[in-house]
């Protein structure tokens, strides 16, 4: 089932604090332990794209305003059913 939403995380703004990972209700975020940004920090990323429900918890909790959230436009057919 396609995701209800997705997020973009600004890799350089992200400080790898991990609060978004903690706050995500579907556990779709993770810290990239095999890569760092130019500050040497393990940034967060959308690990499991199918699970995002566009709840915005991550964006709300992110201290650095590093997250942008997108939500799927509602499909007419799906609305009726």
């Amino acid at each position, binding site marked *: 089932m396609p995701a209800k*939403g*997705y997020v973009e995380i600004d890799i*350089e*703004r992200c*400080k*790898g*604090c*991990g*609060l978004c990972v*903690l*706050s995500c209700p579907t556990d779709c975020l993770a810290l990239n332990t095999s890569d760092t940004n130019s500050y040497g*920090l393990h940034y967060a990323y959308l690990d499991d794209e199918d699970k995002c429900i*566009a*709840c*915005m*918890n991550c*964006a*709300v*909790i*992110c*201290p*650095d*305003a*590093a*997250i*942008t*959230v*997108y*939500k*799927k*436009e509602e499909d007419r057919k799906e609305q009726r059913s």
Partner: protein
Amino acid sequence: MKEGYKLIYEGPKTLVDRRMHYCPGCFHATIHKLLMEVIEEMDIQEKTVGVCPVGCSVFAYDYMDVDMQEAAHGRAAAVATGIKRMLPDRFVFSYQGDGDLAAIGTAETLHACNRGENFTFIFINNGIYGMTGGQMAPTTLEGQKTSTSPYGRDPEKIGLPMKMAEIVSQFDRVAYVERVSCDTPAHARKAKKALRTAFEYQGKKLGTTFVEVASNCPSGWKMTPEESLKWLQERVFPYYPLKVFKKPEKEEA
């Protein structure tokens, strides 16, 4: 943007587009962001003047895209008083840490509250002096270790932590006092609501508004961001409860 999706959240434009210097996980950054969202949503950027403190947030004016004045350590309440008295139709806020508001600035804070100065206090209480290297604050918890309480805060020697939200609620002309936090998305949303409420009451000239944020300091507390949330939840909130301490009886002046 992907096909078939719409943007539902991005950082506020009133937050300057640059990386903030705060430590990973620090609520200073969170509150900067939430406050700037409120200013954007209320469309008052052109009518807002802020006062920043001495402490980790001394550089707040690098991040908040509003006119700001740097105050000497502890004097933000007096500086904000000066601004608001001269420009009563502007939205004026002071943004202070626990050393600034509750140690060196206690006199200025209490007197501004007693006079009922119509500006908003934003008080970031993280129980430590972060910028200067992690010394004890008036709000450091009993038993908490800091660089000037290396054996734990001893109330016998220096008293218990000060509860500023509780104290300022006593003043007649203080209209609205709430303590909030940003440890969970739900709490962060409530914090934003509190900031918005404070500004709305300021707009209605109801008196002093005071939002205290029970905040963290992973670096000073020597914890990871995740551990700092646990400390807040297990140790800080029982002593510093999150609640509304005072709100205006009438919502119009």
